[in-house]
């Protein structure tokens, strides 16, 4: 009781520094807690499935003439069913499509439903997603069955009963058979809606078979204790039986292997590599932040030590043992830490939506975070208390009581050195993070401004989401072209900013197919995006012969090694003549180099899915309204959506953008915490020097000279930090930039700016205290007690 009372009173007495300390500590901790939340969430991906140890995803490695070509888990439709029937080790399988977006009609009202997947009947048996309504064994059995998530059901039906109701897609009714609980945030199998996989076999224009239509993903659940290796060993014969014997003549061989569910998120997904890198970055930031927070705590405690030393000296003279003083100091520290943790947890809870927005993905809230998170939190708290508490306590509790009688109470040279060392560490981290922030900002800017080879300014992207719109495309184009603000309109199969479909083609002289990106466009496409021709001609309007012709890009010609490509042919569903070569443009993200491309004009890869509208005005809001009216007039029951091409293009870098945002926020926070520490530190270090300042002033020093003297020490520390931080930051940024195909340069001004910013804000912080001190009347500071 006494100890607690004394500790609280002692904290209250030095309220200013206590608050600075608690504030910095809470801010830092809340950021760390959030990062831990984020990290544990990533590590817990698809951890909740009861059968997770038995679930595998089927993956394929393709070889061409013995050469490794490609590795993918998106394959043809029949492999799941076949593996279940051929292997006794396979207990169950579930086939899925990759997520798609479509417009469904509910009572004739269009609803865009994003991220819905077709899923096999055993979906709820293999995976541990929960149904709120419906029988898990039957909901996905019959064709045209739909399972909604709670959220979607609520959006579509409000409080009405959804089961039994129908949604319409392409004039076919689908019946709702169940409602699923919303999938947790930590799954790669998230969905808004499920449609029975058997539906795929009934839909028109859908190819279900072994040798085409690569858009299916298959999971298997093995019988317990079955060895996946035993399947992989027999997989050669299996694949031969179903597909490789047909592929043999063109030299292609597909090998099947199994990806354990628990490895998928970090190893086998397309974004696994960048995810892993980001996890590393975040982990490093969390650790650095933790270090800074602890250092602050220690520094402020040491800075405040003269008061503590005096008190501990007094109680020792009056009978307190060292253990008792230690106990007291630790108690005081623990109270501060406990309080900070409570503040931090409140912040984490309160700021959760902002954190999520920052991370650019769903992260479970504090209550949803589970035991692992709680345990890690406890570990962090204990480690922090230990590191932040033990050292200063030992230092201070060792005070010799005779020192108080002689009024010789200072923290020795070692304390000062340590303090300076810790300050340097903080500034090294700050400068490092600022360099990181500026560099990533610069890289992002570079990618956004990069000349992609086409003009994406003032281009609207309008998705053609219904068959009706796709059929009325000519009318749409004509109507829109008549509008005064519209410069050009073009119908395309895909929008060229984030990769395009690949198909197998036989260029002239080749006996094996080449997998090549393809985009289907009309004759207005090149003009609309300012893509220039290198040689040959664009598709001509109203010339049926051109429907059969192809354009290719420079990379294609280069890959083929052709001197004169015009007039050569490419075979796929007949022979196609190359009539022109276009200049290379980036149709995929700038992470990779420009690949070969075929441009077709025959709708041979399906009807156009998007309309591009180019305006010569920057302000498109008026135009959008007008287009919507025309749109609705032509197809009253369709959904009108629009995007801006340049914004879509930027979205491709969402991962980088999200990293960038996080980096920026956490750098800011880290620097803020470091500055709070510096504020407290300069405050007490100046209190300790108040007498010295008085003496100097009495002996003729001006306020400016005193200010310079006081600031000089901090300038030295920051210079030292700068020298340490620059090579570290240079190396790390160099490594990071290497992961981009097109990279910005690491200019010297980035480092100068980072150093300058740090010096400036640090001096501003310190000067707040030093200016006051340098102006004090020496008569006051030199008065003896």
């Amino acid at each position, binding site marked *: 009781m006494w100890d607690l*009372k004394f500790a609280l*009173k002692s904290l209250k007495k030095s309220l200013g520094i206590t608050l600075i300390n608690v504030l910095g500590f809470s801010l830092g901790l809340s950021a760390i807690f959030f990062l831990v939340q984020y990290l544990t969430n990533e590590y817990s991906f698809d951890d909740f499935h009861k059968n997770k140890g038995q679930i595998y995803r089927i993956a394929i490695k393709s070889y061409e003439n013995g050469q490794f070509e490609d590795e993918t888990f998106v394959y043809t439709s029949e492999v799941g069913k076949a593996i279940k029937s051929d292997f006794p080790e396979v207990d169950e399988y579930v086939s899925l499509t990759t997520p798609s977006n479509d417009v469904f009609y509910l009572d004739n009202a269009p609803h865009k439903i994003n991220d819905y997947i077709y899923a096999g009947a055993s979906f709820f048996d293999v995976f541990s997603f929960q149904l709120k309504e419906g029988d898990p064994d039957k909901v996905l059995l019959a064709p045209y069955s739909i399972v909604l998530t709670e959220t979607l059901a609520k959006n579509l039906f409000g409080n009405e009963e959804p089961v039994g109701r129908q949604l319409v897609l392409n004039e076919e009714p689908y019946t709702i058979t169940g409602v699923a609980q919303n999938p947790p945030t930590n799954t790669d199998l998230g969905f808004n809606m499920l449609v029975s996989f058997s539906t795929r076999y009934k839909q028109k224009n859908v190819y279900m078979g072994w040798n085409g239509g690569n858009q299916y993903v298959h999971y298997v659940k093995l019988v317990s204790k079955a060895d996946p290796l035993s399947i992989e060993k027999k997989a050669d014969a299996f694949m031969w039986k179903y597909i490789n014997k047909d592929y043999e003549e063109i030299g292609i061989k597909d090998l099947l292997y199994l990806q354990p569910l628990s490895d998928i998120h970090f190893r086998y997904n397309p974004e696994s590599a960048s995810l892993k890198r980001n996890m590393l970055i975040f982990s490093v930031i969390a650790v650095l932040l933790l270090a800074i927070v602890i250092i602050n705590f220690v520094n402020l405690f040491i800075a405040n030590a003269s008061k503590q030393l*005096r*008190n501990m000296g*007094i109680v020792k003279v*009056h*009978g307190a043992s060292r253990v008792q003083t230690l106990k007291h100091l630790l108690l005081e520290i623990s109270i501060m830490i406990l309080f900070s943790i409570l503040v931090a947890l409140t912040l984490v809870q309160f700021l959760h939506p902002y954190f999520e927005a920052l991370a650019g993905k769903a992260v479970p809230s504090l209550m949803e975070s589970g035991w692992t998170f709680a345990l890690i939190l406890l570990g962090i708290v204990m480690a922090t208390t230990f590191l932040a508490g033990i050292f200063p306590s030992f230092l201070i509790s060792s005070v010799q009581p005779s020192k108080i009688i*002689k009024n010789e109470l200072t923290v020795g040279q070692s304390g000062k050195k340590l303090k300076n060392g810790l300050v340097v560490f903080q500034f090294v981290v700050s400068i490092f993070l600022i360099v990181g922030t500026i560099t990533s900002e610069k890289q992002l800017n570079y990618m956004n401004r990069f000349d992609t080879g086409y003009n994406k300014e003032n281009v609207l992207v309008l998705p053609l989401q219904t068959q009706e719109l796709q059929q009325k495309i000519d009318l749409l184009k004509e109507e829109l072209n008549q509008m005064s603000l519209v410069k050009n309109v073009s119908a395309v199969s895909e929008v060229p900013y984030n990769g395009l479909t690949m198909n197998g083609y036989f260029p002239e002289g080749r006996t094996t197919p080449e997998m090549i990106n393809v985009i289907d466009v009309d004759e207005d496409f090149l003009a609309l995006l300012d893509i220039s021709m290198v040689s040959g001609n664009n598709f001509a309007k109203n010339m049926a012969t051109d429907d059969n012709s192809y354009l290719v890009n420079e990379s294609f010609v280069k890959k083929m090694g052709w001197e004169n490509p015009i007039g050569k042919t490419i075979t796929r569903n007949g022979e196609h003549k190359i009539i022109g070569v276009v200049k290379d443009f980036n149709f995929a993200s700038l992470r990779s180099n420009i690949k070969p491309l075929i441009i077709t004009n025959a709708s041979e890869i399906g009807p156009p899915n998007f309309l591009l509208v180019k305006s010569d005005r920057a302000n498109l809001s008026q135009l959008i309204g007008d287009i919507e009216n025309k749109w609705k007039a032509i197809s009253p029951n369709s959904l009108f959506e629009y995007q801006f091409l340049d914004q879509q293009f930027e979205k491709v870098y969402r991962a980088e953008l999200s990293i960038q945002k996080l980096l920026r926020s956490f750098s800011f926070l880290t620097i803020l915490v470091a500055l709070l520490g510096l504020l407290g530190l300069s405050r007490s270090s100046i209190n300790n020097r108040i007498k010295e300042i008085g003496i100097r002033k009495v002996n003729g020093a001006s306020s400016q000279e005193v200010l310079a003297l006081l600031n000089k020490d901090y300038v030295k520390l920051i210079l030292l930090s700068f020298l340490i931080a620059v090579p570290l930051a240079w190396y790390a940024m160099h490594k990071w930039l290497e992961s981009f195909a097109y990279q910005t340069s690491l200019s010297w001004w980035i480092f100068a700016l980072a150093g300058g910013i740090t010096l400036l804000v640090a001096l501003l912080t310190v000067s707040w205290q030093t200016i006051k001190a340098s102006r004090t009347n020496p008569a006051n500071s030199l008065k003896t007690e």
Partner: protein
Amino acid sequence: MLLQLNNIFKWVNSGGQRIFLLKDINLEVEEGEFISIMGPSGSGKSTLLNVIGMLDAFDEGEYNFLEESVHDLKEKHRANLYKEYIGFVFQSYHLLDELTVQENLEMPLIYKKFKGSERKAMVADMLDRFSIVGKKDLFPAQLSGGQQQLVGIARALISNPKLILADEPTGNLNSKQGEEIMELFKQLNEEGVTIIQVTHSEKNAEYGSRIINLLDGRMI
């Protein structure tokens, strides 16, 4: 006999030279004495007081306190000894700023493991004896220097020490307050408390029964 110093030497080494802080000090103190230690600044007064108070070690000689040989005792035993028998009074009072008068008085009792009820009684007793009951809930900063020193002395006395060591107890006080404090010491001494004070003032030294003069660490 309360304590006895035989041939006490204390020195520091500075730049290869040995500088003596105390040189061959011989001193016997009987219970009930009131001794004043005098001497110019730097003559070793406070050092001697710290040696007697066992807060500072010495380099040579013997020190016996109540039949115990202090020079042979381990640090911990020595600490126990002074905690039990010696009370300290400081020039700058050294009260804990964050505690009230009452709590400051209670503090030493807590470390000496007195029970709560005992502590209350002893504190009440002491407040009464020094006529500061009305000030018990005030903080040191709310008291005058003389009143603070009064609390300091009350705190030194609260666990009934055999010896009070006072290092310039009136050094920060005006003459009237100083006089009152010295009167209090005199009264305490008459009640049987042994007192050793360090002082600059001839007048204050007169309150004592014996004066020891130091010069350059040596008794003269």
